């Protein structure tokens, strides 16, 4: 055994020559290098660089960042309770209420600023739930195949055949219109597309050589899924996660519009839902939250598209 150990160390001495040679050449005289080793750029950083080159993606990111900052710091700068009655109902925008008041006389601007927090949180958390469930189901099903795949596909088909909005309405009605139930309901009805996407990616990757090579190097299933296949399947998943935020925001708006919003927490959807009957009397109470939802979804979609362009190998040139 010791001979084996010894002999394997042999390259060290030989290689140290290479090292000294490389060191000697490296500092000043770059021309001396045999083959310049390209600055190793990790795939994530390469994608970020690519993303920053897309104007619409960057615009979306700036808009999204602005909205997020507004919802985080806005309430401190504009500390008016969005549920409190501050004036006469249907006051048009004026100096007292910059964006007017709604049918109960609540400040629309305060609603926008405070409601954004709920809307964005619902969007992000629901998207997270969507992705966690979808990726887990899709990964297991695509990686193992066989009866596991059949079972999981059957389950996700069951969810796919139910109309998502109706299903979410049933869930919210059953468990009560609270922000948490709304979030969970949105996640529960929209994970199937992420599952299908992940399953397809896993099935594509499962038989590639480097997966086989990892297996031949002794990797177990868990290691293969988490460290080998999933990272390679991530690009489309990230894109779909981003877009899922937009879908979840729209969903929350939809549910609230149908009267299933949480009445105790101001959100953009709730503002539209409660004021929709008076849209001809007080356009401002519906239009501004509508515009806010539009901007948020637009921002998220632009970012999603930007990421897609940056990580999709078919669109990117090496």
């Amino acid at each position: 055994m010791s001979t084996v150990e010894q002999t394997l160390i042999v390259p060290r001495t030989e290689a140290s020559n290479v090292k000294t040679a490389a060191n000697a050449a490296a500092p000043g005289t770059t021309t001396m290098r045999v083959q310049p080793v390209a600055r190793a750029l990790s795939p994530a950083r390469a994608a970020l660089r690519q993303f920053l080159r897309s104007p619409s993606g960057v615009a979306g990111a700036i808009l999204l960042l602005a909205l997020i900052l507004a919802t985080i710091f806005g309430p401190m700068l504009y500390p008016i309770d969005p549920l409190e009655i501050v004036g006469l109902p249907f006051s048009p925008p004026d100096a007292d209420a910059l964006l007017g008041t709604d049918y109960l006389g609540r400040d629309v601007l305060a609603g926008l600023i405070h409601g954004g927090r709920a809307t964005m949180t619902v969007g992000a958390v629901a998207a997270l739930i969507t992705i966690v469930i979808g990726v887990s189901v899709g990964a297991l099903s695509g990686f193992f195949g066989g009866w596991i795949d059949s079972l999981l596909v059957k389950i996700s088909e069951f969810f796919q055949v139910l109309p998502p909005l109706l299903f979410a309405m049933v869930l919210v009605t059953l468990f009560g219109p609270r922000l948490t139930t709304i979030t969970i309901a949105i996640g529960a009805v929209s994970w199937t597309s992420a599952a299908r996407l992940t399953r397809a990616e896993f099935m594509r990757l499962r038989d590639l050589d480097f997966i086989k090579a990892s297996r031949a190097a002794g990797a177990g299933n868990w290691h293969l899924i988490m460290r080998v296949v999933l990272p390679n399947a991530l690009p489309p998943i990230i894109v779909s996660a981003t877009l899922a935020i937009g879908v979840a925001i729209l969903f929350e708006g939809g549910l609230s519009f149908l009267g299933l919003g949480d009445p105790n927490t101001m959100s953009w959807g709730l503002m539209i839902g409660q004021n929709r009957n008076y849209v001809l009397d007080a356009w401002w109470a519906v239009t501004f939250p509508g515009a806010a939802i539009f901007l948020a979804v637009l921002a998220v979609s632009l970012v999603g598209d930007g990421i897609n362009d940056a990580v999709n190998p078919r669109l990117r040139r090496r």
Partner: protein
Amino acid sequence: MTPVLSVEDLSVGMTGRDGKLVPVLENLSFTVDKGRTIALVGESGCGKSMTALAIMRLLPEGFVVTSGRILLEGENVLTARNRRMRALRGNAVSMVFQEPMTALNPLYTVGDQIAEALYHHRNLSRGDAAEQAVQFLKAVQIPAAEQRAKAYPHQMSGGMRQRVMIAMAIACKPKLLIADEPTTALDVTVQAQIFDLLAKLQDETETAIVLITHDLGAVAELADDIAVLYAGRCIETGPAQGVAASPRHPYTRGLLACVPHLAVGRPKPPAWIDLGEIPGMVPALGSRGPDCAFLTRCASASEVCRSRPQPPLGTIDVAHAVSCWRAREIAA
């Protein structure tokens, strides 16, 4: 001394569309000792890669070992528990794949990929493993190994990546290295370098090597023994020099005639000789009867061959065995 690898009477079958078991490999036996190399030679579809995957116990879905034993230092691989098998793979047995362009994970640096096996199998710390990975990159003669370790696979050439694959495979000092057509995807000069490298590493580590290839000429120097497979059956086996110098089976002769043989210092042949070819194709899975599988393509086939099933391997010389009714006539 127990051989490092001993494959005994291995048969592999594939479940066909109609649920029937179609033989893929039939009664294959060979052994490899420490520091020795056996080359499995044959055309595509002869069962070479299946043999390799059976040894790793990584046969694709639908393929099953129907009989035989595979002993790795006396331990039967086929009955080992999954956990034990994972510990063996990459540690006691490792494999170099055919396609260096696709066999490396594009998302990790090559250094990380080599270190990964060391970290898991050798319980090294991440730092030590990374340091060792650089040593192995040097061992496979990659220049500027420190920087290369931080490179991603797409930044390297094919030959470079195959060296990385070899570095990964030898990182845990395996007792057995399976190289599945390690040079097929590379150009000729790099092929020679890779073979030299394998030979050098073998001298240092005394690893047993199973080399899978279709280029009989190229392996004669590296391999100690050769087993020629045809349609899932071993049709000729023996010491490399013997088989390459005096092939007995018409198929082996055909394989050798397919490649040009040039030697430095030898005068040019008086007339250009056309390279040989073996007409036809390997019979498809499922259409292989008890007859000699090579019968339809064989130029030397006679009534003897047609009237009887394929003979078992018959010894014709020291350790040299052939499965052919006419082996003695052909040799003469």
